[in-house]
């Protein structure tokens, strides 16, 4: 029997920002299938022009309240690359710890509050307050502990203060290392219950192989902070060549640019990272991946949430490892730097172009700055993970719709919503393109 379906979800809920799902099927033929991104651009690159690289991380951190540490670190990495500054080993390890806290925080909220309601058959997490009160409280308790860890490490729950170009203005003392360890051990206990719960969740079946893109390296470390850009199709480029990866282009229905590399689209995020770096996961995280059936190549997009769970375990365990190393070796307090806007020339400067490539919860994040010899930003470019994923989301939608035409409109709508949510999109952050109509020109 031929089928007509017309879906217009305006706006999609349980994602950050405003996006619409539009589907039109006429007599079984898919005529239209798109994710409209209707947010306004925010001009952060424009704001950076003329500003010092020593304040850039405080500006770009505001792009996102969830990925503020990721933006801070990508910004610092771009700035340090541009001026040829190499951070110390201690600084790098502390930055990795900071990134773990943010990834864990974001993943936990997405798994518990945005995805679990779909899998438990309720419209939002609000009804879960009555039926699964302890579960919701656990999620928020874990979120708070991640926030508290950030507070100890960088002086704030979000938008780090002490993490700057050149290092950290304040380094954790022994009692602060102990406080962080105490919090992490509590998170570890809550994580065990999270894993038990997740094992009971059933994700929808769907397969579409795409190109999975993320950081890769030659070490044993699951890369979040440093590496080249690689894909499951076997391609690998230096982070400085990121434009060869993103190849951004504009489509009429989206204020977020689309991206593609070697195929018509690619996916970034937890599933991409797992597909690329599965062997480098912490043993506990790898065991969980095996238990959940996540062995590369995983091509069910819905399992991005399961990959986030695996990464959450990895982040907890790797953070404990990092903290144990700091407790053993001690933190060299002499490395604390006071830079300000570098008025006293603490950090040597030179003109240059630098790229930061950092894995944030939703995928790989790029910052690129062109800097003059005074450390002033001449040009900036920031490419956010969600904008890299939007094209792949649409390709997933086009694949799944013909496969589920036997379902009711409501069921199709729900599955499409769940598919988009699986990416954990941060739509406000992705909006980048402004369609300006010039009149009389």
């Amino acid at each position, binding site marked *: 029997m031929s089928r007509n379906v017309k879906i217009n979800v305006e*706006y999609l809920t349980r994602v*950050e920002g405003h996006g619409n799902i539009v589907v039109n099927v006429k007599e079984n033929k898919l005529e239209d299938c798109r994710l409209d991104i209707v947010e306004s651009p925010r001009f952060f690159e424009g704001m950076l022009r003329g500003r010092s690289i020593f304040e850039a991380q405080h500006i770009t951190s505001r792009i996102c309240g969830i990925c503020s540490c990721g933006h801070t670190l990508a910004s610092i990495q771009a700035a340090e690359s541009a001026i040829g500054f190499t951070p110390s080993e201690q600084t790098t390890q502390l930055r990795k710890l900071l990134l773990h806290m943010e990834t864990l925080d*974001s993943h936990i909220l997405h798994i518990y509050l945005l995805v679990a309601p779909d899998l438990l058959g309720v419209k939002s997490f*609000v009804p879960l*307050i009555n039926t699964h009160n302890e579960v*919701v*409280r656990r999620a*928020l*308790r874990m979120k708070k502990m991640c926030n508290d860890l950030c507070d100890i490490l960088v002086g704030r729950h979000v938008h780090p203060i002490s993490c700057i170009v050149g290092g950290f203005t304040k380094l954790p003392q022994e009692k602060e290392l102990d406080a962080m360890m105490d919090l992490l051990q509590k998170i570890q206990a809550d994580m065990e219950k999270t894993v038990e719960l997740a094992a009971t969740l059933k994700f929808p079946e769907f397969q579409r192989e795409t190109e999975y893109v993320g950081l890769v390296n030659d070490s044993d470390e699951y890369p979040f902070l440093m590496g080249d850009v690689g894909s499951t199709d076997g391609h690998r480029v230096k982070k400085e060549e990121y434009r060869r990866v993103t190849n951004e282009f504009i489509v009429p229905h989206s204020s977020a640019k689309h991206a593609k590399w070697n195929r018509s689209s690619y996916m970034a995020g937890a599933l991409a990272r797992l597909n690329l770096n599965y062997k480098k996961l912490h043993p506990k995280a790898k065991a969980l991946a095996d238990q959940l059936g996540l062995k590369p190549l995983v091509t069910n997009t819905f399992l991005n949430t399961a990959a986030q769970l695996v990464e959450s375990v990895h982040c907890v365990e790797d953070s404990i490892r990092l903290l144990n190393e700091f407790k053993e070796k001690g933190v060299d307090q002499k490395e604390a730097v006071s830079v300000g806007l570098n008025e006293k020339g603490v950090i040597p400067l030179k003109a240059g172009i630098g790229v930061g490539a950092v894995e944030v919860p939703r995928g790989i994040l790029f910052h690129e700055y062109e800097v003059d010899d005074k450390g002033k930003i001449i040009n900036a470019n920031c490419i956010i993970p969600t904008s890299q994923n939007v094209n792949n989301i649409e390709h997933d939608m086009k694949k799944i719709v013909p496969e589920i035409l036997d379902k009711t409109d409501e069921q199709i709508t729900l599955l499409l919503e769940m598919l988009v949510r699986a990416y954990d999109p941060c739509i406000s952050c992705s909006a980048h393109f402004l369609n300006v109509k010039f009149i009389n020109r």
Partner: protein
Amino acid sequence: MKKEIEEALRPGTGVTLIITAGNSFRQDDGVGPYIASGIRPTSTLKVINAGYTPENIIEEAVSLNPQSIVFIDAADFNSQAGDIRLIPEESIPETTVSTHMIPLNIISRLIADSIKSKIAFIGIQPKSTQFGEDMCPEVKSAADTIVRTIHQGFGRPTL
């Protein structure tokens, strides 16, 4: 001040917990934190300033096992600046939930369902919630009235 608001602020048989919310960098939205800084706690009067992350105070609130909880926040109900109202929970909009924002009434439900406390919401009409640290005189005066009423109820002289 209306009688219903005075009643909501009156001591009960157990611990009364005042939870304030708001952002001190957004002019009159800072009324909640301002009130929190003015309250002098006792063994039966506790205060938590949730600031702009109310989801982070749930465990602390539950651990205090309050008999009643009063949330105080700036609320736009199209009235004169500084007007104080008791807000019915059902009239607080459940704005879109995302990883970036969790509404206050959801937080209150989480606490209330955990410990069966009596919950009240008090809203203060702001004049402006634009960037800035100064509150308008009307809102500041309303905040002082609330602090005074609480202290009178709990037998605490206001400093």
